[in-house]
């Protein structure tokens, strides 16, 4: 599975990349803001994007919309500490495949990947998958 990580902190990109690599996924690209994320998406066509929300230049919600517009089949999972309802709703309306609230347990990422691979319903919200 080819992954694109979009997050403005090096630290988070490093940690996410480690988790994905540990699962045998290929981290095909990393971007530090929404705009770079959109450009990279077009270039590398990843199977999955993890998207932070609060970022400079272009925030994650705008980037999500831009990616979905370019490729309606894109699978973008929001990974953000902005867990407020308004952000979750906005993400889902804009076509996010999931929403993971930071800080997260690596298992959450694993579960999400497994579900996406099995082709299960793509919306994986924290809270709906409790237990």
């Amino acid at each position, binding site marked *: 599975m080819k992954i694109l990580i979009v997050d403005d902190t090096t630290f988070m990109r490093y940690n996410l990349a480690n988790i994905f690599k540990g699962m045998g996924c290929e981290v095909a690209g990393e971007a530090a803001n929404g705009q770079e994320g959109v450009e990279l998406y077009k270039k590398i066509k990843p199977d999955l994007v993890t998207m932070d929300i609060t970022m400079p230049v272009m925030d994650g919600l705008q980037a999500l919309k831009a990616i979905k517009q370019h490729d309606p089949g894109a699978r973008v999972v929001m990974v953000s*500490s902005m867990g407020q309802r308004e952000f979750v709703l906005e993400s889902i309306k804009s076509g996010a495949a999931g929403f993971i609230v930071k800080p997260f347990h690596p298992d959450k990422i694993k579960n999400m990947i497994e579900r996406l691979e099995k082709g299960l319903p793509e919306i994986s*919200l924290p809270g709906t998958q409790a237990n």
Partner: protein
Amino acid sequence: MTGDNNGKHTPDNDSIAENLTLINEDNPAGVTENEAASQEYRPVVTPEMVNIFINEAMELFEEAETALLELEKSPEDREYIEQVFRVFHSFKGNAGFLGYRDYEKLSHKAESIFEDIRKGRSLVNEETVSVLLSVIDVMRDGTRNLKPGETADLPGKDILIDLLDNLEIFSQLLPEMTEQPPVDTPAGVTVTCTVKEEEDFFYQNGQCRDNHGEETPCPPPLEKPEGKERCKDPEHDAGSPENNKKQSTIQRAIRVDVEKLDSLLDLVGELVIAEAMVSHNPDIQGLQLDRLDKSLLQLTKITREIQDMAMSMRMIPLAGTFQKMTRLVRDLSLKVNKRIKLVISGEETEVDKTIIEQISDPLVHLIRNAADHGIEAPEERMAAGKPETGHITLEARHSAGEVLIIVKDDGRGLNRQKILKKAGKLGLLQDEAKDLKDEEVWNLIFEPGFSTADNVSSISGRGVGMDVVKSQIGKLRGRVDIRSTPGQGTIFSIRIPLTMAIIEGMVVRVGKAGYTIPIISIKESLQPRPEQITVTPGGLELITIRGEILPVIRLHELYKIKPTYKNLTEGIVIVVESDAKKCCLFVDELAGHQQIVIKALSGYFGKVRGISGFAILGEGEVSMILDITSLVNSAESLLENSTAKHAV
């Protein structure tokens, strides 16, 4: 799904929203029960994770600090508000991941203050900036010392959280008080500065919010016409590229280990030498080899380009260093109760990273001195007919292979009498003090142990004197000049050669040996006429050049070599200068100037007198680079000894 769909709801919104039930509205961090469980989880923290965390945190804090200082000047600048918010938000996320609860808590508080500000519920004022700067200071000190596997307690965080709470409470209290006179900050708040214009502060906090904390349309501006600005919809503005132009200059850059850059420069040095060895090879001298010459020319050109490129990769703008001074001056002016403004120009000037690393301390020292001793108290300034606010100017620019950094203040200037008095006490003066030029008097303040302050204050003069400034700049092969006019201020000009590793050198011959003198130290070279030469009874030779009497050092005597010429009038005399002191070096001939790659002396040589390193010349010959400073100093003491003998 609760199934509580009464048909009115659009299925996309509220059903999902109910499904979520995850976000506790009372919990601004949006931490759910589920999340709370995952907070117990502690990731395996590797040293590398902590390193990345620390490095990034330092960058983030610097970013926030810069933005906060800008906000102090223009409190409504959306861009900086967003930036500060984002920094605390990012840092909170990172700290949370590593389970650093104290940091998470503190940055969360700071973030929510800025959340209010960006939503227009509250405004930036001097107090916000002060408290948040302290928060950054504390977190920065703590972060620096984090170690993997250790807990990350943050001493003093409770005080800061109290301060942040107070900021929040104060801004929430305001709407009810709009009709009342301005109030003081709530009891228990200790902040380093007070609100400057209470009316303004008052207005800023009250207008864009009703009692329920809902945003309301902004009322027509009362006193401040720009009041409307504050009610712009932050969500709408936040992410648009136009609004974030400043941040969008994210460079297309990769991180390279500094060690790799250093060894690249070493290799380029070798390349420069190898290139000179080929093109000056004795085997091809005097031969007519057109095609080879053409290729060699090409080689030389590319070598120079690679050299320039390798150098430029180590060049960093001074902006970061200068920016820190803004904070310094801000804190200083509060501490000494003077109004001081720092004016920065030329911060885009690029210098070698070695310079960046070492220039900060001397600059801090000079600025501290300017703020503490240079700039007068407001009353004194007014009395002297000067503007109340003192100015310290920090300026940088390139000039002829050097970087020139100027620290200028418009304060009272240096006091000649005071300096001379002090110097006399310290025994730094010969008896002819009255004849000293101003320049020489000013230079006395660089003497060890010198400090003109009658009372050593906590700001400058904490045992480290101006002599340290001078020696630190000396280490960079730089020099400091002082100009000062009583009542008008003092100017410190620092000149440092742009590169540290490759210099322009003059190769001189003494017998069979070749020595290298840095071009920057050479004033002139001449063949003296007999009438210019005098010899002291102590045996020291002196040459008079345009009325100036300079001692001569014969390099062949110093290094015990057989020279071609023993007579001063036959060889060449080179006048060298260091720290405004001059002497003459006697050599056989000048062999030409070339780019010199400095090779440091190996440790096992110990300290060799008069030599600062080695250079490999085009022919592969090793040449010693003369340490002009120590030569000039030894000539000076020779001169003193010989005149002393003369006097006896």
